[in-house]
């Protein structure tokens, strides 16, 4: 009977946690269980142990400690005014589930969040207690991601950083004005201050100065946040600007974008429609361009219409089609930064081109072997035996490169 209860709780509290898109288990310190009392390892690369039919990976046991909440955020399944089933795990139940799942190799670790109960301090204290029990009582060396309750005492945040690999506080709504309207108990200033504190502590824990004693550990996998897409009317350019500001300000490892999705017992304050998955995808691509390809948010925005990215073509292609005077680019001579701007060339491909061209002058077929699809690249490059001629400036280039059926954001219901 007790077992059945636990399964029911698991069902409720996993359902309550799934709208948080974060799933990473990478980028933390390397360690394993050799010589320890327990189990667990992290070796740099994250591992996705399963995929659900929504295409999302299952890497961590992603659950809430409880979905009771005193806040009433319109976009959230767990808001106080929702009639969803409520449950609460005990600290030991979460610890046990984490270890039992981990032993069977279902997960990389735990991602624990919670509704706000009683107070920010009380809630954060409960989360920290789970992490502390796993680390200290069970010598668990797997990955732990804890949700930061922004209102909590900085001392609790410090303790959380001691046990957790990653901390995160979600901004959720790209527009501050919308947060006030849709999440009246939240304060974006408090969230930003908490993220600022985390950045300062992560920096202080970085063992840079050799002569100093090793600083105490603090969230070696850094912090991340999430922005909901499609709930507050913010256009893509505004969302990307927000992300750029968050990356620069708080040293975030990741900003996650979560297409606003219908939830059970949803609030009337928000539109119910199919989640804008293609829009979410384009935002992730644009985010990648900012982090790995040297693009700035305003540059990506150049090709947007009314602040919205093109859904039919990826943001790099959209940018290039808009800036054709910069192309074609000579793959045998162009600097790395410019090759990164060629549609269809990823970071790995560019690095390979730069390395190979020291030994061979590249032909188009060589480039074809190095990248995924040369058709997309061809109009934007020259190689030993290739020049695109009028193709770069062809009027119908966009139509040629866009997929046959432009993916539209259909409203199915």
């Amino acid at each position, binding site marked *: 009977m007790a077992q059945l209860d*636990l*399964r029911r709780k*698991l*069902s*409720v509290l*996993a*359902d309550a*946690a*799934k709208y948080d898109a974060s799933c990473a288990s990478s980028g933390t310190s390397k360690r*394993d*269980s*050799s010589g*320890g*009392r327990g*189990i667990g390892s992290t*070796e740099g*690369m994250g*591992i996705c*142990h*399963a*995929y*659900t*039919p*929504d*295409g*999302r990976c*299952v890497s961590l046991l992603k659950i809430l400690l409880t979905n009771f909440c005193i806040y009433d955020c319109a976009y959230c399944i767990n808001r*106080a005014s929702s009639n969803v089933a409520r449950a609460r795990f005990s600290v030991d139940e979460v610890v046990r*589930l984490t270890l*039992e*799942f981990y*032993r*069977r*190799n279902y997960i990389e670790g735990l991602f624990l969040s919670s509704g706000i109960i009683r107070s920010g301090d009380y809630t954060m204290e409960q989360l920290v207690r789970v992490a502390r029990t796993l680390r200290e009582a069970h010598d668990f060396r797997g990955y732990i991601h804890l949700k930061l309750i922004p209102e909590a005492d900085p001392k609790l945040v410090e303790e959380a950083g001691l046990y957790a690999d990653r901390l995160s506080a979600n901004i959720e709504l790209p527009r501050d004005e919308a947060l*006030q309207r849709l999440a*009246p*108990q*939240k304060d974006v*200033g408090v969230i*930003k*201050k908490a*993220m*600022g*504190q985390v950045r300062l502590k992560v920096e202080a824990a970085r063992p840079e100065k050799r002569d100093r004693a090793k600083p105490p550990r603090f969230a070696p996998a850094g912090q991340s946040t999430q922005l909901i897409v499609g709930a507050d009317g913010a256009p893509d350019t505004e969302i990307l600007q927000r992300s750029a500001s968050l*990356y*620069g*300000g708080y040293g975030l490892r990741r900003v996650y974008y979560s297409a606003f999705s*219908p939830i*059970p017992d*949803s609030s009337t304050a928000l539109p119910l429609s199919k*989640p804008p*998955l293609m829009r979410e995808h384009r935002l992730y691509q644009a985010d990648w361009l900012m*982090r790995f390809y040297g693009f700035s948010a305003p540059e990506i925005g150049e090709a947007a219409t009314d602040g919205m990215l093109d859904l039919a073509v990826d943001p790099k292609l959209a940018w290039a089609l808009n800036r054709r005077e910069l192309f074609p680019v000579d793959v045998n001579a162009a600097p790395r930064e410019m090759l990164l701007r060629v549609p269809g060339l990823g970071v790995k491909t560019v690095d390979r081109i730069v*390395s*190979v061209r*020291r*030994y061979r002058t590249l032909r188009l077929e*060589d480039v074809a072997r*190095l990248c995924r699809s040369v058709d997309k690249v061809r109009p934007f490059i020259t190689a030993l035996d290739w020049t695109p001629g009028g193709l770069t400036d062809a009027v119908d280039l966009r139509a040629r490169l866009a997929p046959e059926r432009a993916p539209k954001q259909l409203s199915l*219901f």
Partner: protein
Amino acid sequence: MAVAALAGETDFDGWRKAARRFREAGVTPAEARFVVGGAGQGGLFDAPAEAPAGEGKPFAVPRAFVETAQSVILHRSDDRFDLLYRLLWRLRDAPDLMRVVSDRDVADALERAKNVSRASHKMKAFVRFRQVEDERGEAWVAWFEPAHRVLEMTAPFFARRFATMRWSILTPDGSAHWDGEALELGPPATRDMAPAEDEMEEFWRTYYASTFNPARLKTGAMRAEMPKRYWKNLPEAALIPELVAQSAVRTEAMVAAPAPEPNRRLEKTLSRLARDASFDEGFVPSTLEELDAAVQACRRCPLWRDATQGVCGAGPKKARLMIVGEQPGDQEDLAGRPFVGPAGRVLDAALEEAGIDRDEVFVTNAVKHFKHEPRGKRRLHRTPTTGEVSACRWWLDAERRLVKPKVILAMGATAGLGVLGRKPAVTKERGRPIPLSDGAAALLTVHPSYLLRIPDPAARAAERARFVADLEQARSLL
């Protein structure tokens, strides 16, 4: 034709020895054959007697080739030995060949190595242990079918991860056993040698089903990362058809559900918890604490949007000296206190030299929010506009009214604008007290961050001395 017999499918050492001898003997790729097992069981090199041996010289190959070859040999393709020998042969004339990743053979080998590495990664992901009890207690057994022959390569990962567990991984290629101390490799196994179920699998399936969001079906993305070939050994995969089939109905039900009845009592409680973020433009603070709270809600200009917080002045309530800078920087924005970053350290040192105790100075800025531009992982300072400085004078004036300093030292043109209401020529006007309408005297000097930017050490020292002299002058006026 030269034939070499290898001891097993993944016999890298055997292949290496044979291939080395082939190349030394001038056996071309077309003439070389590698066979697993065969007549010469156990013999590593079974080249026919007529193959000329030891004709060539010993040779070295790039490390990149050895590493790639070690992976490629685990690939399930039959022609992998031939591909590797072709590469080894071509390395004779092209020692840089492995770097030419666009070459057909190199690209092929790298692709196969990538497939092997992916198979190893998927093994780390998709092995599922089941619990068993034996005479020595609790142990864990998994049946797994890897896409390539990656058992031996991947087993140490499980030893590191599950160091305190006794486990076995059984595969059609072989088995790996860990007893808590040593890793042992055993013969191939069959599925029936592993347990058929585990009591936690019901919990795992419950979790898997619950963490799935039916409103965002993307089965293509799922199959790309979790290929169907692995499904038969994943306890959760049995749920996939039903989850997919029901997703549309479940989503429709969520959308069609009537809006919840409003609960008046709850609404009342919630509204009490709501924070008041409205900005009252006419509010005049009567204490520094009120001022600080009001600045946090300020919407007089858009700089609040990308800043963490408004940073007000700090220092004694009735300081005789007020020092005004331009705006908070990156560190000040996070810490919420003025002059804690690099410019703050310059200021602190100069104050000490001028004989001024910073604890007796009220230090503030002309603009309370950090104006910047994100650049990757950093934020680059941007100078506030006249409009932004003017908007923020409301707060600087309030600080002046509350602190009532005798002397105000404005550092830099922006600070001068904030204090005087006009843009001063700092270099011309410095050193001369300017009377202010509230009875205080203003002095102008440069901003300490200017000192940080002077590249020439001698010029920097001279400018710094002038800066300290300006501070001393301010002290003399108190």
